[in-house]
């Protein structure tokens, strides 16, 4: 909301305060000032000047060389405008000034060989209009040398105030003035109404019927007859221009002026275009499907819309926008001014469903002053007569069946200390309340009843009054307390486990990524039953992710595109899967925290001493193993291998805990990777955080490191190619004694030299006895028993051993 400080000064005296005082006080007390435009500063070095003489430019026919007196000296100035003449008073930009529009700096410059000491300005260059056909010719009565800002009334300061949704009372110049009067303890002055009314009562000219008093608690109208519709006088135009509103004609401008003055939205009807000279306030009728608003748009009406109608048809959408069928035109002579209080709960849904936010609806849906409608209607009538002649009919038509009373709020002054931890002196509280328009029934005791006027829709409770006292008094005056001790309560960190996971993965060389949980339908449906959004921003982000897969693949794509092809990445994030088509309760979907890890590109780069090698699924398995060890997971997790990995994977495996799948993944199928524009192999695995949490080792205790030497033995077996390593290892582990501590595979090959359908697997065995040093005999006995068992069980041949 734009606020003109000159305008505010009409209602509150700000003498002796700097612009900074005012801006800081407003900002600190809740009316945050975003942007400040100080016009005086913008028009620095612009003055009223005299064109003393107009001569020809020696080198250019279209340019004139003028002698210009700027009040201090007479200067040579080159001017290209066709309308420049000697004897004119002009807007002159002195050397060193900066054009308000465009920011061009005026310097002493040679123009076609002649030095020009400044510039005579056109309207657009001064940012007061769009005309560039010639220079502005000023009032000849202006004194030469006067600062232009003063001469043109461009000495205003404009504030952009960001009003919070609770402060509907501050959506006007008078409202801002009210806060300033409390902040600086200044007098607040409301303009007085001095109407010269005609003899005939307004009721003779129009009739008003409110059929829906719940949504329209008050409807006030004044009638002005015999008005001339014309341009507004300069003062009125300038007020509106200063806050960025476009002047239209005197009647419309007056209604806009009053809205920005006091915050009451008004609407002017052409009384002669109202059928039956009647206003009926009622709900939309079923057959009234659309309505043409005064911006000539045919708009669909909300079922619940409250309509302003004449005897036959709707003429306005209540509180939102008037209709084209009854708006004021240049031919209008009789005007009915509507000044109503609409229920915020009626206007808001209507404006929202029509996707139409106007100055009126914005204020009505936040709450206007039900007690201010009459003042505003009369103020408008008076200004219309002042600007366009005519006569105000006697009295207003005021339908206000149930008068709203001030709210009575109990206030215990001791509560200020209890909530703020700071005492605000009682006299200050009393002063603040009174300046804000509240009445205190008896301020002598400690428990008061405060009467809050109905325009403060945000104040109903004691706590609201405490806030008013605090924000005007100043939060910065509240001294922070330094507490030595904090109460002893147990502390919990629900994020600790995720942090451990991040630390474990960072430690083995994975980078954390964070992706957008909103994905396209295609991405969401890749790996679950997805939940669509009712109001997505774009189709790319219309569903919640069902897994972290799509985000990971998209990230890989983005990096591969910039030729970062070797990646080890992880993400921890929420995933969302529907259990039912319609989400009615928390049971109809599940939100799960998951961990995704991915590897792609080179496991090792070609270096001067290492050969290049691409990642394969065994790197993924290895990384998962290292991760489990780093996270100290217990040994309840088992890997299960599958021939097929569904739509997304081949080389697929799962990690299970009992029957629960804790994680899954493998090599991403080529066509799936390609659908993400990734042209290289990707290894992906996704795990459920809650299941990992359940599998973490909770009883870690000291175990003595081995005291006696370990003994290693190797053996290579010739096996059928179909024999699975896991089966061999499980068999050996099952069949051998406690002395065997580990079996690892250190070589594997197939080839013609060992015969088709065969493979050679070289195993290393680790033996250890907790009880003492193993003898050669003990080891040999165990070792050969293993070899014989394997030979028998798997029909294997021993190729060698040591």
């Amino acid at each position, binding site marked *: 909301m734009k606020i003109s400080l000159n305008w505010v000064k009409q209602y509150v005296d700000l003498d002796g305060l700097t612009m900074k005082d005012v801006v800081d006080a407003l900002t600190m*007390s809740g009316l945050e000032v975003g942007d400040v435009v100080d016009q005086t500063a913008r028009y620095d070095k612009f003055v009223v000047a005299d064109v003393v003489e107009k001569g020809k430019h020696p080198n250019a026919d279209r340019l004139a060389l003028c002698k210009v007196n700027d009040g201090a000296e007479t200067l040579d100035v080159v001017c290209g405008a066709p309308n420049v003449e000697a004897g004119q008073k002009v807007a002159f930009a002195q050397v060193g000034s900066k054009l308000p529009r465009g920011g061009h700096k005026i310097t002493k410059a040679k123009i076609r060989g002649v030095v020009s000491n400044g510039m005579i300005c056109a309207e657009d260059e001064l940012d007061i209009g769009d005309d560039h056909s010639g220079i502005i010719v000023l009032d000849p009565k202006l004194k030469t040398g006067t600062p232009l800002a003063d001469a043109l009334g461009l000495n205003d300061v404009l504030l952009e105030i960001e009003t919070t949704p609770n402060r509907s009372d501050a959506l006007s110049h008078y409202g801002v003035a009210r806060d300033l009067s409390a902040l600086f303890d200044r007098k607040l002055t409301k303009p007085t109404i001095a109407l010269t009314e005609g003899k005939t009562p307004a009721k003779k000219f129009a009739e008003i019927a409110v059929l829906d008093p719940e949504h329209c608690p008050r409807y006030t109208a004044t009638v002005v007859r015999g008005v001339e519709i014309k341009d507004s006088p300069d003062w009125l135009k300038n007020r509106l221009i200063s806050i960025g509103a476009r002047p239209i004609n005197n009647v419309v401008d007056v209604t806009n002026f009053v809205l920005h003055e006091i915050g009451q939205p008004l609407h002017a009807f052409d009384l002669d275009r109202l059928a039956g000279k009647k206003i009926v306030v009622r709900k939309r009728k079923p057959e009234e499907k659309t309505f043409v608003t005064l911006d000539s748009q045919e708009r669909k009406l909300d079922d619940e819309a409250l309509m302003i109608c004449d005897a036959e048809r709707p003429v306005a959408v209540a509180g939102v926008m008037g209709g084209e069928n009854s708006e004021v035109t240049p031919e209008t002579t009789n005007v009915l001014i509507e000044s109503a209080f609409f229920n915020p709960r009626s206007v808001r849904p209507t404006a929202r469903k029509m996707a139409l936010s106007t100055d009126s609806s914005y204020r009505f849906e936040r709450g206007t002053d039900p007690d201010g409608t009459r003042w505003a209607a009369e103020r408008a009538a008076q200004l219309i007569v002042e600007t366009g002649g005519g006569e105000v009919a006697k009295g207003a038509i005021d339908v206000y069946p149930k008068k709203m009373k001030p709210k009575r709020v109990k206030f215990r002054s001791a509560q200020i200390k*209890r*909530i703020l931890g700071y005492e605000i002196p009682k006299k200050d509280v009393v002063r603040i309340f009174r300046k804000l328009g509240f009445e205190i029934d008896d301020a002598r005791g400690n428990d008061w009843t405060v009467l809050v006027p109905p325009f403060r829709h945000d104040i109903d409770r004691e706590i609201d009054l405490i806030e008013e006292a605090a924000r005007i008094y100043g939060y910065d005056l509240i001294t922070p307390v330094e507490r030595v001790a904090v109460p002893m309560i147990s502390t919990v*960190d629900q994020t600790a486990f995720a942090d451990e996971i991040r630390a474990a993965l960072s430690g083995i060389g994975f980078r954390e990524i964070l992706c957008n949980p909103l994905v396209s339908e295609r991405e969401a449906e890749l790996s679950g039953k997805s939940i669509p959004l009712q109001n997505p921003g774009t189709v790319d982000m219309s569903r919640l992710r069902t897994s972290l897969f799509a985000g990971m693949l998209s990230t890989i794509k983005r*990096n591969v595109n910039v030729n970062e092809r070797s*990646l080890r990445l992880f993400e921890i994030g929420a995933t969302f899967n529907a259990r039912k088509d319609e989400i*009615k309760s928390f049971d109809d979907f599940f939100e799960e925290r998951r961990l995704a890890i991915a590897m792609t590109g080179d496991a090792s780069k070609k270096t*001067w001493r290492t050969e290049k090698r691409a990642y394969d699924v065994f790197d993924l398995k290895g990384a998962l193993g290292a991760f489990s060890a780093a996270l100290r997971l217990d040994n309840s997790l088992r890997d299960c291998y599958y021939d097929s990995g569904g739509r997304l994977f081949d080389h697929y495996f799962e990690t299970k805990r009992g029957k629960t799948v804790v994680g899954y993944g493998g090599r991403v199928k080529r066509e799936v990777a390609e659908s993400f524009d990734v042209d290289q192999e990707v290894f992906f695995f996704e795990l459920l955080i809650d299941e990992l949490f359940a599998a973490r080792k909770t009883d870690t205790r000291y175990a003595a490191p081995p005291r006696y030497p370990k003994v290693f033995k190797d053996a290579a077996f010739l096996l059928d190619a179909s024999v699975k390593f896991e089966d061999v290892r499980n068999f050996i582990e099952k069949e051998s004694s406690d002395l065997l501590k580990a079996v690892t595979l250190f070589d594997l090959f197939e080839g013609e030299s060992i015969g088709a359908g065969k493979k050679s697997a070289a195993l290393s065995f680790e033996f250890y006895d907790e009880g003492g040093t193993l003898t050669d005999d003990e080891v040999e006995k165990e070792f050969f028993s293993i070899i014989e068992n394997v030979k028998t069980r798997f029909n294997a041949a021993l190729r060698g051993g040591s």
Partner: protein
Amino acid sequence: MIDKIEAAKREFDHDADAVGDERALESFRVKFLSRNGIISKLFDEMKAAPNEEKPALGKALNQFRKGAEEKFTALEEKLQSDGEEDAVDLSLPGEPAFVGGKHILTQTIDSIKDIFKRMGFSVYEGPELESDYHNFEALNFPPDHPARDEQDTYFVNDKFLLRTHTSPVQIRLMQSTKPPVRAIMPGKVYRNEAINARSMNHFYQVEGLHVDTDVTFADLKSALMRFAAEFYGENSRYRFRASFFPFTEPSAEMDISCFLCGGEGCRVCKHTGWLEILGCGMVDPNVLKAVGYDPDVYSGYAFGMGVDRTALMRYAVPDIRVLYENDIRFLRQF
């Protein structure tokens, strides 16, 4: 004389063992094998020996000299070959190892968590797909109130939505715990906003809550100023200005003096000299009532800050979208 030769031999063997480099080898040569060396001197001395002893001495000396010369050559070769075997160009590049790390936003959340944990705050999480009740109603947002417009919401339907702040975690926590409650809630939140350099449709927040029998606005100020001093440095200035949130009353926004201009006014702070860092206030009595706390017995403060904006300020990142592009070249910087 023969004893002297034997002693010289022992000394020779001893010294030979100690030769470790070229310089030692040269002094070794000078000491034993040069013209004025021990062996030459022994030959000179032999001239003065009785004639009958000369053949035996000569034989012994010649053997000594031969052996010494062989030993010297061997030592020389060994030193040379040692040099060859161990010769490494250490300026060659090292073997690459994997480096991992946390996302810049996680790191920022970690710093915030660390500070509040030291001040005795717990850390809680909650669902991102929330009910309207937890996200709005229990937080004193009346249905169809303009305050809801401030938080452009992604809806799943009329009842479920993507949380617009982590405040629903406060509600869940208070509903399940008796006071005192002192906790922060980090997490992802969503707003249905256009994506550009300054705004994202999802981002991270850390909110906090402290409710007890005598918690005041003065406590709020001291806790948040302590946090800010640790997070942003001791030299910044702060101010609390009045604001509005449905779930707090009184409400405030906390500003820090602009890092860039120190409060003089610049483009970053829009010439105000201040940057907004968080919103806060005293928990609204309606919220306390909604979770079953008696507002005449308990009071407390709540606050919330945007992690992304904080990270952008902290690391001078000009565009919020960069945080979620996961460009490895960006992630490696932090």
